[in-house]
């Protein structure tokens, strides 16, 4: 349906009539091919697969019989492009354009293309349905569930699954005080990192003085390694919008903004389209569903600065200024955007709202732990077998996420640490894998929930080097306005550089701790005050590794170039000459069928020989 043709929904009854008519028009036995068109699958060629399906259906004259649906991300991006055949729900992975004719033929015959099914590495069995795959089995998909099943560019798809019914309920059956009370009682806490109770924030903003108020959706997602906000905004933009409209109504705001990273073009275009469609139906704009409530939303693209995810910096950037934070003696709920009361929430926080309004606080607060309610979407990445987005109830142990859902460590290596909370978070060692994921438990361990990145590291990852990675990141991203952050992070970087190059001293470890204190106490915003967390947790749980660098001048993980040497194990070397050919510094010499030799004076320690050797004959120590 094109946007121009639709009738505005004048009241809730009209929305319900529309919903019924969409559902009735749909045949539950209809063959549908759902192709994931999320950024991950597109990166693996989903656009070519989609084009191949279109061509094949046209060629066979089946375009009317079989529907093609371009869905959002399913979470299991690593196995993409993903295709699901409805109504049987057959789940195909790693689909390439050349598989398309076989899939169409099998679908018409009621058959299955066996070789495209997922194979459970533990049992060797082929799995037919998505929800039976171990990666999905342990998940509870409340917020992210419809992401891979509907076409994000069709508002009708969202309406068909009950979309905008929470808005209808909030506008007609609840007072604004009741909405806020429901959100407060649900126990929902902000998913952007801080974990602030959402209902309390709404209430403060509602009470703040001022006729003009704003709601803002934080889709800056600066934490490198996290991508749930992008996937949600891309795949279910209407749930985010619906949450924002309900929030704005409760707070008394008539204007909203979505602040989204420029690196996320598909999220920008899907959100923009969702706004246009909601406007056309009168779910946004003037007199929403005949309630008298007016609300409009615009999109702002961020310029790729990590600090702009911070509330006051984000608002400065929305005003068209340089994104520097300010001291928050006065909260942004009182004086935010253009000094007016502003309620900022994260993408995932907003997307939880329709669920809470529809199913009620009493249902929602059954899920999770005492102080962390509901589910959380994590981006499980790094050295783990199954990487992707996972949604689990708060409170499940880290071990379950990494080993059951994630399927354990890549290449049979040994687990070393998981990093949560991004640059403001910390490393969690094996001894703490029983910890439940919960805002407070993770903070006690010296890390934090953050926005939900969970980066798994194995024995080959050097913790000192990783701490340095985060410090380097923050050094670039510090806006430079306050001295403790600008200078403190710089100094920490220098100390870590010393340690990783073998020039460290034992006093350096205490120096790092002292610098961390200064940062925590003296910084203007949370970028600085939490910046030392990766360093502190690595010192706390992996001090031995620091000592090995400082005292023995060794990097046990074999990552710090200055502290390692490459050599050839002559007993294993077959003389295949691959390393001799590939070495960019010409440091490896040898003859065919004779062990090669590395000239350490010439070796640049690039590790190419180590990577190319098929016989494990290159030693790194």
């Amino acid at each position, binding site marked *: 349906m094109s946007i121009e043709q639709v009738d505005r929904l004048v009241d809730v009854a009209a929305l319900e009539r529309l919903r019924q008519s969409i559902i009735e028009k749909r045949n539950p036995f209809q063959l549908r091919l759902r192709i994931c068109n999320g950024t*991950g699958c597109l990166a693996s060629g989903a656009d070519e697969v989609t084009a191949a399906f279109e061509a094949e259906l046209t060629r066979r004259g089946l375009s009317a019989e079989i529907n093609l649906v371009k869905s959002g991300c399913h979470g299991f991006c690593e196995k993409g492009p993903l295709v699901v055949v409805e109504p049987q729900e057959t789940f195909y992975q790693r689909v390439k354009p050349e598989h398309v004719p076989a899939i169409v033929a099998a679908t018409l015959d009621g058959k299955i293309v066996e070789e495209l099914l997922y194979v459970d590495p533990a049992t060797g069995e082929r799995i037919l349905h998505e929800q039976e795959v171990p990666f999905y089995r342990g998940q509870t998909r409340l917020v992210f569930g419809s992401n891979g099943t509907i076409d994000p560019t069709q508002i009708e798809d969202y309406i068909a699954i009950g979309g905008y019914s929470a808005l209808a309920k909030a506008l007609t059956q609840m007072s604004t005080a009741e909405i806020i009370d429901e959100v407060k009682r649900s126990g929902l806490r902000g998913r952007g990192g801080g974990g602030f109770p959402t209902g309390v924030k709404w209430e403060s903003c509602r009470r703040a003085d001022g006729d003009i108020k704003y709601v803002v959706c934080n889709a800056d997602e600066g934490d490198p*390694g996290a991508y749930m906000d*992008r996937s949600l905004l891309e795949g279910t933009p209407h749930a985010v919008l619906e949450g924002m409209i309900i929030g704005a109504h409760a707070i008394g705001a008539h204007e909203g903004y979505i602040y989204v990273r420029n690196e996320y073009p598909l999220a920008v275009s899907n959100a923009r389209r969702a706004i246009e469609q909601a406007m056309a139906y009168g779910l946004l704009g003037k007199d929403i569903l005949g309630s008298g409530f007016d609300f409009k939303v615009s999109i702002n693209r961020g310029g790729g600065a990590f600090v702009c995810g911070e509330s006051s910096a984000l608002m400065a950037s929305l005003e*068209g*200024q340089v994104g520097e934070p300010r001291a928050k003696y006065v909260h942004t709920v009182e004086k935010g955007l253009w000094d007016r009361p502003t309620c900022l929430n994260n993408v995932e926080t907003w997307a939880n709202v329709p669920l809470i309004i529809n199913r009620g606080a009493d249902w929602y607060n059954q899920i999770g732990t005492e102080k962390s309610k509901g589910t959380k979407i994590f*981006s499980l990445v*790094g050295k783990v077998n199954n990487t992707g987005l996972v949604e689990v109830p708060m409170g499940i142990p880290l071990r379950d996420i990494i080993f059951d859902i994630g399927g354990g460590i890549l290449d049979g290596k040994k687990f070393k640490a998981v990093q949560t909370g991004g640059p403001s978070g910390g490393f969690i060692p094996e001894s703490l894998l029983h910890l439940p994921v919960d805002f407070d438990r993770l903070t006690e361990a010296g890390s934090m929930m953050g926005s939900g990145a969970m980066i798994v590291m194995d024995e080959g990852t050097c913790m000192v080097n990783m701490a340095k*990675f985060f410090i380097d990141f923050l050094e670039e991203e510090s806006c430079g306005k306050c001295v403790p952050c600008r200078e403190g992070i710089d100094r920490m970087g220098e100390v870590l550089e010393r340690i990783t190059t073998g020039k460290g001293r034992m006093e350096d470890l205490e120096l790092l701790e002292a610098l961390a204190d200064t940062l925590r106490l003296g910084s203007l915003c949370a970028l600085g005050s939490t910046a030392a967390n990766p360093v502190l947790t690595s010192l706390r749980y992996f001090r031995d590794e620091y000592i090995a660098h400082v005292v023995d001048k060794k990097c046990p993980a074999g990552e710090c170039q200055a502290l390692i040497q490459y050599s050839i194990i002559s007993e294993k070397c077959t003389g295949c000459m691959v390393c001799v050919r590939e070495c960019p510094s010409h440091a490896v010499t040898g003859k065919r069928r004779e062990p090669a030799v590395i000239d350490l004076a010439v070796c640049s320690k690039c590790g190419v020989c180590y990577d190319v050797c098929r016989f494990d004959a290159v030693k790194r120590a």
Partner: protein
Amino acid sequence: MAAEMDSEKVQGILERHSERVNAIIDGYEGRKDLMISLLQDVQAEFNYVPRDAMVQISQRLDVPLSQVFSIATFFKAFNLTPRGRHLITVCDGTACHVRGGLRLIDKLDRDLGLTPGGTTEDGRFTLETVRCLGACALGPLMVIDGKYHGQMSSNKLDRTLRSYT
């Protein structure tokens, strides 16, 4: 004489530039708060943010040039110098880093003398690094001219680059 022709030609290009910048500014109806989006559009048009464009924006929106400049330098997304024919973006976000993203950067340096922020002498490639593109499950990730290449390795890199001339 030849020099005159050249400067005429340059003048022509500049005028066409300024028309394109004007058209972009027109789309924003004088809204200063959308400066970042405006600069993004300018960058998308020219591949970088030319100095003249900043002057023009400053004059037309009545904003000090220093402010336009400070925004263009604060945010990573903006380039103030022209770029090569193909833009390579290597992700050095945490997930890609852990899976060996830096190796790709080292290799580009070794093979093409290409360092982050730099352009090859023949103008073929410009290299940028980014902290996360939001496709972390496919790390290490690299993007060439907007096309994503996931699960990159040194070998795959060689093969991939060959198709960009």
